[in-house]
């Protein structure tokens, strides 16, 4: 019984250790770094196709959807562009308004784009209960391996 418990504990320790140990690549020589900045270009037009020349645009980032991240004005052809911060993956919202007309578009940026307007998070009570369940599961596993064998 103690042996099984010890084996389980060792396996668990090795698993955790494997997650935490960084892999080092030994090399020397030239090192090149590059970044790719993807610009988003939008064109705003009225329903009849006429460009929204000089219309105001507002860009909202996914990490703070209530505060403007960027504001500006479209050019004479209703065009404008911006480079989103790719360290903030998710849905970028862009609003364009002029003379009582307006619209908003939602642009996913980055892999596994997070979704705005999610239906709520966990309360503190839920988090505590989930933590207790994890602890209990761990304890239960330990108790299982520590049980005495029947003769």
């Amino acid at each position: 019984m103690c042996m099984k418990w010890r084996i389980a504990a060792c396996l668990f320790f090795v698993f955790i250790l494997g997650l935490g140990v960084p892999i080092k690549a030994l090399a020397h020589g030239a090192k090149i770094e590059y970044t790719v900045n993807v610009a988003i270009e939008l064109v705003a037009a009225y329903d009849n196709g006429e460009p929204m020349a000089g219309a105001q645009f507002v860009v909202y980032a996914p990490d703070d959807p209530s505060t403007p991240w960027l504001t500006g004005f479209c050019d004479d052809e209703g065009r404008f562009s911006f480079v989103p911060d790719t360290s903030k993956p998710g849905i970028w919202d862009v609003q364009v308004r002029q003379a009582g007309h307006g619209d908003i578009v939602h642009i996913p940026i980055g892999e596994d784009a997070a979704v705005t307007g999610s239906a709520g998070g966990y309360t503190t009570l839920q988090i505590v209960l989930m933590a207790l369940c994890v602890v209990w599961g761990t304890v239960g596993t330990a108790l299982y391996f520590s049980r005495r064998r029947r003769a």
Partner: protein
Amino acid sequence: MRKRMLVLPIAVLFVVSIMLIGCAGAAVGTLQFDANGEDFVRQGFVSKDGWSIDFDHVYITLADVTACQTDPPYDPHSGADMNCDVKISLGNVYTVDLAEGGDNAPPILVGEVSDAPVGHYNAISWKMVKAPTGPAAGYSVVVIGTAEKEGQSVDFSIKVDEEYEYACGEYVGDERKGMLQEGGTADVEMTFHFDHIFGDAETPMDDDLNVSAVGFEPFASIAEAGKLDADMAELHAKLAAGDYQMLVDILPTLGHVGEGHCHCE
């Protein structure tokens, strides 16, 4: 034997814990539903054909008012059904006066839900229905006011008995709406653009707003002794066919979300 006796209560405790997780309840706040006729209704405006219009009352009757959290965000241009991840509705029929409160009044609070799940309510739908009772009984929209031009004055009461259903995307305006935090309050707004009916002298005449608007002159031309009290049947009988058709075509465009568009049926 002792351990066997412990297993059952421990298992029950574990199951109860799981149940409590699910039943602990999501974070909630208060979601308010507003109706807004904007300054056009509160302060009046000049129609595309020069009539200075002031409103005494603008009654609209609302039903099935529903705010949704949608993912992906609902696109009103698509005309598709609104698929709600979270849906909050007002259960009653409401007749509100968009002109209530004077020139600088805030939007009209239609109703609120105090235990709405948190999140971003980025879509809203509602119906404009005939009022069952009250000052607008039998009509979905009643517009009462006075129009003046070059010494002429017309007291008017225009009553619409058509019913409309709106499905709208996210509010478009100076600030974003519908973002509800735990324990907080957020609002969603149903906006009504009555300048679409009469046009706006401050907007270029070749703007689609004015091109599609009826104006006030057609209504003034059928007034008798400076008074006009007409429902859609009477307007159909008295207005020129082209003017009546423009009115029929423009009424569904009343509903907006700020400057954002809605799909109307």
